[in-house]
C-alpha cells in the first residue's frame, strides 16, 4: 500500500545545467561589456592626452602673441570638465571589473597622471595669463561615503567656469605622484582640498566652501560672482 515515490534526478540535473548556462550567458555578456568598457575608456584617455599635448604646445606661444589667454582658459576648462566626467566613469568601471581589474587600474593611473599634468599646466598658464578661475585640488577618500565631491559638483554648477576641480584618489597607492602631492601639501586627513595656496583638511560644508572660494575670487582679482555677494 502507498504510492511509489519518484525523485526527478534527471530534471534536477538538467535544471542545474540550464541554470549554469543562463549564469554563464550572463558572465559572457559581462566579459563582452567589460571589454567594451575598456576600449571605450582607452579611447577617452587617448583623446584627453592629445588635448593635453595641444595645450602644452599652445601655452609655449603665449609670449609671442600667437596664442591668446582666453582661448587657453577655455580649452583648459573644457578639458578638465570632460576629464572629471570620464574619470567618474572609469572609476565606476574599475569598481565593477572582474576580469580586467589590472588594465582598469593602469587606465586610472593614466587618468590621474593626466589630471596632475593638467593641474601643473594650469598653474603655468596662470603665471603667463591673468588668472580667471580658482583651481581646487581635491583629494577624496574612496572608502568613505563622503559628500564632499557632490558639494564640489554643486558649487561647480553655481560658479561654472569660475572654478576648476582636479580630483585625485588619496588612497591610490599605485601612483607615487599622488603621494608626492599629499606630502608636499602636508595632507594627512581626507577628504582634503587645496584652494589656491591654502590647504583645507576634513570635510567642508557648502557654505564654508563657498566662502573659501569667494575669498579666493577676491584674492585673484577676477570678477566676483553674484552668489558671493549673497553669502556676504
Amino acid at each position, binding site marked *: *500500500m*502507498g*504510492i511509489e*515515490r*519518484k*525523485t*526527478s534526478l534527471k*530534471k*534536477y540535473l*538538467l*535544471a*542545474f545545467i*540550464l*541554470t549554469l548556462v*543562463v*549564469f554563464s*550567458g*550572463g*558572465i559572457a*555578456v*559581462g566579459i563582452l*561589456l567589460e571589454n*567594451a*568598457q575598456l576600449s*571605450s575608456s582607452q579611447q577617452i584617455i587617448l583623446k584627453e592626452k592629445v588635448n593635453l599635448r595641444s595645450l602644452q604646445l599652445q601655452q609655449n606661444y603665449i609670449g609671442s602673441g600667437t596664442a591668446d589667454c582666453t582661448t587657453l582658459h577655455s580649452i583648459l576648462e573644457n578639458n578638465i570638465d570632460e576629464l572629471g*566626467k570620464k574619470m567618474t*566613469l572609469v572609476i*565606476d*568601471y574599475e*569598481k*565593477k*571589473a*572582474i576580469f580586467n*581589474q589590472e588594465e582598469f587600474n593602469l587606465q586610472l593611473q593614466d587618468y590621474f597622471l593626466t589630471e596632475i599634468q593638467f593641474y601643473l599646466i594650469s598653474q603655468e598658464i596662470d603665471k603667463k595669463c591673468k588668472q580667471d578661475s580658482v583651481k581646487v585640488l581635491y583629494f577624496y577618500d574612496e572608502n568613505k*561615503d563622503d*559628500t564632499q565631491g*557632490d*558639494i564640489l559638483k*554643486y558649487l561647480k*554648477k*553655481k560658479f561654472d567656469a569660475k572654478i576648476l576641480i582636479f580630483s585625485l584618489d588619496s588612497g591610490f597607492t599605485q601612483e607615487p605622484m599622488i603621494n608626492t602631492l599629499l606630502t608636499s601639501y602636508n595632507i594627512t586627513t581626507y577628504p582634503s582640498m587645496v584652494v589656491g595656496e591654502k590647504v583645507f583638511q576634513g570635510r567642508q*560644508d*557648502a*557654505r564654508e566652501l563657498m566662502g573659501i572660494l569667494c575669498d579666493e575670487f577676491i584674492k585673484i582679482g577676477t570678477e566676483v560672482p553674484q552668489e558671493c555677494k549673497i553669502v556676504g
Partner: protein
Amino acid sequence: MIVTVLDAVLFCTYFLLLFLSIFWLLVLFSSQEKNEKKKLRNFPFFTTIVPAYNEEKSVKETLLSLINLDYPNEKKEIIVVNDGSTDRTKEIVEQFIQDHPTNKITLVNQKNQGKGKAMNTGLALARGEFFACLDADSFIATNALQEMLPLFQEDVNIAAVCPMLKVKNPKNVLQKVQWCEYIINMFYKFLNSRLDCIHVTPGPFSIYKTAVIKELGGFNEHTITEDLEIAIRLQKYQYKIVQTFDAIVETVAPLTWKKLFKQRVRWYKGSVDNTLAYKNLIFNKKYGDFGFIRMPTIISSGIIAIILSATLFQSLISKLYFQFNYLKSVNFDFITLIRNYSFDFNLLNLPIFKLFVACTLLGISLFVMIYSYRLVKEKITNYGRTWLSLVTYLFIYGFFITLVWFYIAFMVVTKKKNFWS
C-alpha cells in the same frame, strides 16, 4: 571588484530562484501519460461538513450551493457544525433545514473550539464514503462531485482531490489581484500534482476518503491550518493528492489589505509550522520529490523573499540617506540643482549580469502567467484587466507578501503563536 558576503548570498539566491523556475518549466514540458476522463461508476454516499463560526452573511448561500449539487439527494448529507457562533448562524441554518426537508441536513452546535475540532465533530457523524469540508464563505459549482469523485477510481492510493479555486466576483483592486494570484497558484498546484507534491488540501471543498482520514486519526485540533497539516500527513503516509481543474469552487477573498495580511500570516505561518513539525520528510529520499523539492521550498520561498527585499530595502535606504545628506549639505538648494540638471546615461555602465538573470526570470514569470490563464481557460483580460490591478499584482503585491514573510520571521524569532484572522 570586492565580493562581499552579501554578494555571495545574493548570487546563491538568484541561482536557487532560477534553478527552481527552470525545474518547474521542465516538469511542465515533460511528457505525461494522459488519463482518459472517467465517469462516475456509481454514486457513493457523500458527506459535506460545513464548519461555521459567525457566518450569518454567507452560510445560506453556501448551503444552497450544496443542495444544488448535481448528485442524488439520497446519496448526500450535509453536516453543519456551528462552532459557538455568537451571531445568527444557528437560527439561519435551522430555518434552512426547515425550508428544505427533502435534504439530509444536520446541525451540530458546539462550544467554540476551533476548525479542527469542528471538522472532527462532523467527521465522527459522517456516513459518507467520501467527505468534503466547505467553508461557509465558499460556493461550489453544481458539477463538482461528478468531476471530482471519478478521480478516486484512478488509483486506490488517492486519498484527496482538490478543486480549482477561484475568487468569487472580485470587486475592488485587491480582490482582482487575488483573482490573478489564485490562477497562478493553480498553475503551480497543477505542476506539483504531476510530481505528487501537493502540500495543502484547501478548506473549500477538497474531497477526502473518509476511511483514510479516520484511520489517520482525523484532523489536528492544535493547528489552525488543519488543511495544510492533513495534506502533509497524507503525504507522510504515502497517500496521493490529486488536483483537478474541472470542478470550480469560488471563495470570498479579503476586501482589505489588513484582512489579507492576517489571512496570509495565518497561511504562511501554518506552512512553516507544519513543515517544521514534519521536518523528517525534508530531503528524505523515501518521499521522493516531495521531500527534495516541495518541503524545502515551503520555507525557502520565504527566505528568498526576505533576502531579496531586505537587500533592495537596504540599498534604497542607504541611497536615500546619502542623497538626504547631500541635499542637507547644499542647504536644499533645489533651484540650482534643477537648473543645472543633466541626464547622464551610459549603456556600458548598466549591471548587465544582474539584468540578464532578472530578464530571464521575468520572461519565465510572464510565460507562467500566460500559461496559467490558458490552463484554467480564463482570458487574461478577465477581472485582471484593469491596469491598476495588473500593475499592483506585478509590482506591489510581491512587496506585500514579503512583508508577510518578515512578520512571520518576527513571529518565529519571538516564538509568537499563529492566530485566526
